[in-house]
């Protein structure tokens, strides 16, 4: 079964943080050119679990490859080759190379399926990111559509606190803190998710503080290869967390979780003395412990879109599903590609390549429809945004919502 045996890309973590593409020479050259990063078939007669007479579809691993012309550089093998070319100075960081390196959603489906990941520590998505860092270091001007979303704000923008209901600021110095992040904090259309979570915290009577200072977690810069910027943002964030007395940090965004939980320790060279949870993990614990009651039924068939950064990068697959099943009346169905094999929603390229992102999202929406889902639940604002747009453009009636909102509704709290 695809993904079997390479369980937990998150577990097979290697320290890459390649400011230095040269540091990945061994990994780059260990690419076996096997095309596991391109396509995979489940029902292979030669593999365990083969079921004669049963058709299981193959699937294309790389969402970019699925929606482009299928050239070599449209998927990880070719992009790793580009990285090799930059490393060995065989190719220049031309506009074409930049486009191909940034036409990658960083979904890590390639890394999940790469047979070299565990032993040779080849993580193709990280190699691509390192190649981006190389391009940045060489001072190449990135196209505006790529550069602007990754531009570091001059100073943090405080979140507009008017939408945080009275009393919900919580208590300064409370050890539990909610970090809405830039999207939930600043984007009007996503604020409902943050409001819902805060409402749930209030419902739980959990002493908490909401971090409204508005600093960026650093993921956009990190993904773009601007490692220095990401490191600086990490340092500032950790300093503020310490100053605010935070012991447990809950984030609402999958990108934010990856940064705080996985990347900050690597970037800063030390473990964080803060426990980091995604909102769905926090809520799943509360529901399991009986502290949060979900009593409002919702008769609907839902499916769950595994955010790439939450699933493949952080290994969180079960908590959101447990939460969804805990809502009375909900039937949870799985899309054909799920968990470790989840197809990217396209959110990772939505800023720079919106049309491509929409094509990818449309495929995912179609899979949800095929699974007979009426609602797609997710736990990532980029995913939610892109899937909503894709559903609207394709005329699908599938509703896309954040799992936190669904939980808040089930708990009968208003955001």
């Amino acid at each position, binding site marked *: 079964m695809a993904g079997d045996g390479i369980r937990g890309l998150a577990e097979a973590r290697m320290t890459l943080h390649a400011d230095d593409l040269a540091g990945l020479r061994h990994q780059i050259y260990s690419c076996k050119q096997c095309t596991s990063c391109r396509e995979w078939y489940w029902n292979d007669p*030669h593999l365990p679990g083969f079921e004669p007479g049963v*058709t299981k579809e193959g699937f294309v691993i790389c969402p970019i490859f699925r929606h482009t012309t299928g*050239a*070599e*550089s449209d998927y990880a093998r070719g992009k790793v080759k580009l990285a090799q070319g930059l490393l060995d100075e065989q190719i220049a960081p031309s506009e074409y190379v930049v486009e191909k390196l940034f036409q990658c959603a960083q979904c890590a489906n390639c890394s999940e399926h790469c047979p*070299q990941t*565990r*032993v*040779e520590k080849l993580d193709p998505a990280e190699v691509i990111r390192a190649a981006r860092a190389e391009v940045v270091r060489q001072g190449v001007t990135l196209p505006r559509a790529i550069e602007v979303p990754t531009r570091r704000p001059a100073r943090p923008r405080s979140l507009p606190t008017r939408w945080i209901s009275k009393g919900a600021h919580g208590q300064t110095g409370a050890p539990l803190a909610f970090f809405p992040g830039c999207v939930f904090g600043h984007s009007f259309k996503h604020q409902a998710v943050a409001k819902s979570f805060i409402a749930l915290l209030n419902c739980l009577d959990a002493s908490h503080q909401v971090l409204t200072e508005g600093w960026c977690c650093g993921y956009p810069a990190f993904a773009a290869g601007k490692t220095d910027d990401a490191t600086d943002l990490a340092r500032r964030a950790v300093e503020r967390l310490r100053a605010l007395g935070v012991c447990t940090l809950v984030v609402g965004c999958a990108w934010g979780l990856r940064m705080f939980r996985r990347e900050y320790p690597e970037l800063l060279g030390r473990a964080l003395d803060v426990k980091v949870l995604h909102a769905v993990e926090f809520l799943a614990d509360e529901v399991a412990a009986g502290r949060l009651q979900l009593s409002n039924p919702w008769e609907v068939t839902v499916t769950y879109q595994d955010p790439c950064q939450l699933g493949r990068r952080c290994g969180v697959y079960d908590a959101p599903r447990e939460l969804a099943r805990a809502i009375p009346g909900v039937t949870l169905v799985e899309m054909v590609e799920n968990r470790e094999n989840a197809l990217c929603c396209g959110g990772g390229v939505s800023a720079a390549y919106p049309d491509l992102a929409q094509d990818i999202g449309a495929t995912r929406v179609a899979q949800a429809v095929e699974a007979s889902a009426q609602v797609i639940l997710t736990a990532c604002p980029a995913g939610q945004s892109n899937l909503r747009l894709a559903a609207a453009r394709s005329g699908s009636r599938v509703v896309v919502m954040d799992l936190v909102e669904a939980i808040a509704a089930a708990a009968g709290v208003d955001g």
Partner: protein
Amino acid sequence: MSDEMNNTSAICRRLKSIVGSQYVTDEPAELWCYTGNLLPRNPELVVRPGSVEQLQAVVEVVVGAGLSVIPRGLATRSTPRRPGVYPATEGGVILETNRLKSIRRIDRSGMLVTAEAGVTMAELANHLAPLGYRVIEGTMAPFCATVGSLTGVGPGLRKYGRREQQILDIEMVLSSGQVVHTANVEGYDMNLTPVLVAAQGFECLGVVTAVTYRLHMLPERFEYLNFEFDRTTNTVRFLLELDRSVAVQLPGLFQVNVWPEAVFRLYARMPWVYRQSDDYRRLLGRYPPFPADVVGVILEGQEDQVVLQKTMLEEMAKECGGIAAGSEPTRDYFVNRNWTGNTKCHEDVSRRTTSWAEPFFLCAVEDYPKAKSIAESVAAACGFEIGERFWARGTLRSGLMGYTSCVTFDDTEVKERERAAAFVEKVLLEAAAVQPLSANTASDRLSRDVLRALKELLDPGGMMYPGALYMD
């Protein structure tokens, strides 16, 4: 602008008019992606036609412009010994066939299937399985390789006979643009298919566009068994027992592979091959000392038949001093059998090697220890380090063992080529001395001569994959 650039640009425009602009590229960075990992040689263009008619037109334009054609499938390098995939010389046009995705026909009465070259083996298998059929591509063929690429893969398979009995026709486009069918080469009234199947090198004759396979019924169950023997004498006992006394009782016996100790020295540095199996983690943890041989057996057939035969084999192996060592081939086993120049056993090796020389001979099963000894000693004498640049495998056939040893070498160095050639020659001569039937230097030379003669006949201008076939 130079004439050369003008020419390439003009050719590019013409090709775009044939296949569509998005399927032709002369972008330097993209061309780089199509070069070899080790000694990159840059093509002029990459073209990806979507039909045989487009492919013919492309070949006519390219060859007409004096450029060579380099056929390419998915370039997984999953079929060792094949020169295909990367340019062997600078320049030329890479012609990818992986847009040829049609399964043209399934003939149930004739038990045939014709698939275009870009269909992967997994796609074909998945298409046929619901109908209750399969093709015999050899379990060494990975799911991801394309039909067009795998026509060059050997070995014989016990249950279904030789590879040449599985492939009935190969459709190829020659450098003249002509489409030929190897089962009946027009104007020559001959069937070239048995000559070319498993020949490794016929992509120097033309571009494969479709293959016709014999269909077989799909077994109800597959079972993969691995047995570990710490002494080669025990391995031989088991193989003899398997071959002589049990074969007739094991109609499901599909394939038997023997992986000698030397291979596992190599694999010890590449634990991904068996890392998913707990048994193999244990096995690898014992290095050194290392087990002598691992015998892999594949059974297939009816459910109860396979279960029974599995039990019989396990008992037999135990009586011969072996132990069961895992029963699951992992995905990685199939994906990672690309122990060619991209093998990452040692960085220097992987950076230097681009080719491999692989003498193959038949010997009696009882002669397997001698075969192993010959191959290892000749490799050592020629300076090929065991475990680094040498590997070997045996395949049990009816009454005989097919023994394959292989050394990797840098084919850009004349002395390396001479060393590899010497290795091949010496292995075959010494093997012939042991067992008169075994080494077939004569036929090996004959097959080379036949291939060269075909090359001169079908590609007189030498436009198909120049440099990949040693003509001297």
